[in-house]
């Protein structure tokens, strides 16, 4: 198990890639953007980017706004 922070909340999971994390959270990959430790992870890299102990992940989408 490793522990990392997703959108400000600490989570413990078995090792997984960014793509697997999105699948576990049932998030539509085409409508989110992922930042890992402050840097954007491009979509083609999601499968090969493994999360590590202590990582900070931000998963964002477009919401209503003016």
């Amino acid at each position: 198990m490793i522990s990392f922070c997703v959108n400000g909340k600490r989570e413990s999971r078995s090792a997984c890639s960014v793509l697997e994390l999105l699948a576990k959270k049932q998030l539509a990959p085409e409508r989110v953007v992922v930042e890992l430790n402050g840097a954007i992870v491009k979509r083609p890299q999601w499968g090969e980017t493994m999360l590590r102990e202590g990582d900070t992940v931000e998963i964002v989408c477009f919401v209503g706004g003016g």
Partner: protein
Amino acid sequence: MQDNLILGGKAFSSRLLTGTGKFSSPRLIPKILAASGAQMMTVAVRRVNPDKPEEDMLTHIPAGVTILPNTSGARNAQEAVRIARIAREMGCGDFIKIEVITDMKYLLPDGAETLAAAAILAKEGFVVLPYIQPDPVLCRQLEAAGAAAVMPLAAPIGSLRGLRCRDMLEMIIEASSVPVIVDAGIGRPSHAAEAMELGADAVLVNTAISAAEDPVLMSRAFALAVQAGRLGYLAKAGAERPVAVASSPLTGFLGVAHAN
């Protein structure tokens, strides 16, 4: 008559931009779009909430609409740049509304930070639309920094108070060589018409539509007001006069004896 608004090399026949915030249901968005005729809609960038999938605005905005993400939540240039880059990564184009706010009572934008962010993002190829206070000097600086348009406020965001900054807006419209989009503070269709009559290139309306009892009907009202104001501007009104000028002939009255 072809009268398109050109932004970032794209032609828009509608001069009404609408926001997507604060609607009672996101399912209203397609109806708002149809009634307003808007071709560009703003969105915000936020953390996903897996418990509220309906918040995902891209599931509600119909295809073909130009997405204008804002950088709301940014308190300085660096945060605005970060949000803009994330927004572009979504794959919905290069448009960005820069919004850097540090004044939490009136939600007034920070000009210096906005200018700094505009310079960076324009260099990165964004179509930069900065939300600003109606400051003609800042507008010139933003133009020089590569802004595709300027978006001065008419009154504080969501205040619905109309063109309180009218004189400053006029100065900006007179001097600007990029489109002027009046953003924030417009409360009624007549305010939108007034801005367009002054020569604004477009208006952005959110709260005035979302807070209306019938938002869809209000969208239609704004569409007509923007069109009326634009046509009024293009038609060029006659000059005001201090005294009456009769509209009917002053000759040929009944019951008046002929001179000969």
